[in-house]
């Protein structure tokens, strides 16, 4: 059982506090979805979990399997089995997808890395995600469409086999067919590896494929409401404004309760 636990986390960037007293616990076999208006700190949260140096942790802790990862570097966190599927995957000139993946997997597997197995699995996953085979030999995300980039993130996820997956707006830039492929691929992975998954999204459409066990609404850097899948429908009908008004005081209570449990 793998557990990612975030306790009383406050984070700033350029002296502006983005995340305030944030609490969340994700266990293996759970899919948590965080929704919320733009600029509430959802993407920041995923980057902070991954150890982005641009953000300063003011207080609180992030633990993976009861060990604090706050002082670990990004690559050390990744090697523990945490994966971030990014909202805007970068284009890196000259570094081919194949070289990038081979380096990442040989770093993870050290002496157990087998090139033939790697190529076989890569081919299989490329087919499964209905990607063009030549993308593997192109520069990393170079000339990729928005959808191709997102599929490439999922390809990396499959190849690296993480335990805890953070998906930051993985649905943006995807057409209907690609959304289905990506959504189903995430669910298949979840079922096969019993992973813990945190999904950041704005839209219900992704959740037609990825079935959450927990849904949270985030506003002003903290969770203001938590619930099950039914919360997504409520947000879809009423929007965040009405939802926030309705739950503002409740939201504070939820956070306080979680803190008092600590």
């Amino acid at each position, binding site marked *: 059982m793998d557990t990612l636990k975030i306790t009383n986390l406050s984070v700033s960037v350029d002296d502006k506090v983005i995340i305030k007293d944030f609490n969340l616990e994700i266990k293996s076999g759970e899919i948590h979805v965080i929704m919320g208006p733009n600029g509430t700190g959802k993407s920041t949260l995923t980057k902070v979990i991954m150890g982005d140096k641009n953000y300063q942790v003011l207080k609180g802790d992030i633990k993976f399997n009861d060990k604090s990862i706050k002082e670990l570097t990004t*690559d050390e966190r*990744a*090697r523990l089995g945490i994966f971030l599927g990014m909202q805007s995957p*970068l284009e*890196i000139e*000259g570094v081919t997808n194949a070289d990038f993946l081979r380096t*990442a997997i040989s*770093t993870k597997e050290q002496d157990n890395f087998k090139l033939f197995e790697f190529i076989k699995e890569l081919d299989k996953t490329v087919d499964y995600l209905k990607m063009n085979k030549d993308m593997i030999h192109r520069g990393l995300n170079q000339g990729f469409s928005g959808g191709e980039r997102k599929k490439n993130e999922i390809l990396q996820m499959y190849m690296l086999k993480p335990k805890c997956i953070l998906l930051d707006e993985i649905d943006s830039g995807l057409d209907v067919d690609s959304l289905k492929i990506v959504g189903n691929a995430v669910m298949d992975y979840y079922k096969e590896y019993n992973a813990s998954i945190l999904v950041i999204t704005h839209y219900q459409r992704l959740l037609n494929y990825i079935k959450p066990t927990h849904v949270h609404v985030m506003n002003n850097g903290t969770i203001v409401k938590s619930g099950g899948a039914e919360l997504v429908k409520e947000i879809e009908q009423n929007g965040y404004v009405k939802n926030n008004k309705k739950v503002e005081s409740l939201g504070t209570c939820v956070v306080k309760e979680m803190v008092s449990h600590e």
Partner: protein
Amino acid sequence: MSLRKWLVMNKIVLDKELKDYTNSDIEVSYQKQSDLLNIPCLSIKVNNKTDLLLELNGYIDKINIDIVINCDCNIYIDCTSDDMKIKYHYSINNSSKCNVYKYNQVNHINEMCVVDLDSIGSDIEYIFKSICTYKENYDYVINHNCQNTISNITNNGVNKSGAMNIQISGYIPKNIIGCTCNQNNRIINLTNNKCEIRPNLYIDCDDVNANHSALIGKFDDNEMFYLNSRGISEIDATNLLIKGFILNGMENEDILKKITKDIDKYWR
């Protein structure tokens, strides 16, 4: 950039005294010392479509190399030396297209490179890569002497522990219309030492297409974060980014292997 591989690879190695020779593709003549400046001079004439590999292995510390190009060709230059002063002069005639791929692995170099685009439509695509460990100074002069000539010059250097300076000047005189003159220079400076790029365009003509770019800096933090987020350590990520930067655009297998070996030596 259109690339064609010609069937015959002519190889010139400057590791010992070179004798004059001629074949159907090239004419090579070597003067131990030129009269005026007491500097040895190598002259190469390309008369047929060919690939030419020039290896400079550090046996000569001063040399002038004149390359007269009368036909389309790919020239690969692999230069290894401790301390070197070198001048290249390319004359490109007969509307020829010349692709130059050059890699330097030197400690200290002062290099001058003059390109004369001497006939209508002469075209040079020049890609230079270097890993700087001590001190490297490069001075380029690109003369567009005829109409519709093309120069695309790319200089990519990684400064590991030294200082790298690039000065590049493109000249297009009056009435030399329809030229393309591009300069793309980038130094990844992994130290706090001073590096400099001075790109100049001296253009006395309206109807031209000219661009220059100069960038000195470290790798983008976001690129590093992306690679780190896949479990790749800082040193392996640097290795990967440098390979991407230095190998990109290079063509010759032997040179690619040599660059890869050098990068693995420094960043692994």
